[in-house]
């Protein structure tokens, strides 16, 4: 059965800290891995990763995929209180089906 695991499930840091969120997966016919940020609304898209070893960056956020070891990390540097959210990892497998992980709840304290 396809599965996506995220760790940690929750994390509390202070502003300015750097955090690394982990996502590992077991998915049939892997196509892509996506990271989403969810606040009090539907999740918003952050990154889509399809190739190993190629880092994607957007401001203070970056992400990389390792297709051999079947995992991805999401890094956030110089965290701000506005980064507080649930970060979802999703993997696209067979039939365009997406499997989501349970999310990592990040709380950034001032």
């Amino acid at each position, binding site marked *: 059965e396809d599965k*996506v695991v995220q760790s940690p499930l929750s994390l509390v840091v202070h502003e300015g800290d750097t955090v690394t969120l982990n996502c590992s997966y077991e998915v049939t016919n892997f*196509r*892509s891995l*996506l990271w989403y940020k969810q606040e009090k*609304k*539907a*999740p*918003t*898209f952050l990154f*889509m990763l*399809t190739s190993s070893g190629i880092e994607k960056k957007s401001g203070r956020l970056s992400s990389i995929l390792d297709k051999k070891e079947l995992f991805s990390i999401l890094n956030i540097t110089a965290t701000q209180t506005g980064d507080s959210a649930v970060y*979802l990892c*999703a993997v*696209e497998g067979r*039939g*365009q*089906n*997406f*499997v*989501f*992980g*349970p*999310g990592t709840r990040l709380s950034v304290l001032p």
Partner: protein
Amino acid sequence: DVKVTQSSRYLVKRTGEKVFLECVQDMDHENMFWYRQDPGLGLRLIYFSYDVKMKEKGDIPEGYSVSREKKERFSLILESASTNQTSMYLCASSLYPGGVNMETQYFGPGTRLLVL
């Protein structure tokens, strides 16, 4: 600006009622999805549709049905609502074909359904 809208933000229904959740996208996307989100379980796919009048079961289709009569509209139907269907329901759409050419799924704002 892409847009996925859902007919209701909040719904309260009674056990046994028939419930319709509507989703409309204005991006001419082929694919549309219905998810439910519950604490600790992440997003779980209920049904998806890759074309008008086409539908596929997701991971948890039991107790639900869907309708895709027009490309822009994907409806989720609870034939007889039960309390375990209390949840946040999220609709999404994506451009066909999928895979590496698909940058993202666009999500609606969600409908929070409470079944009493």
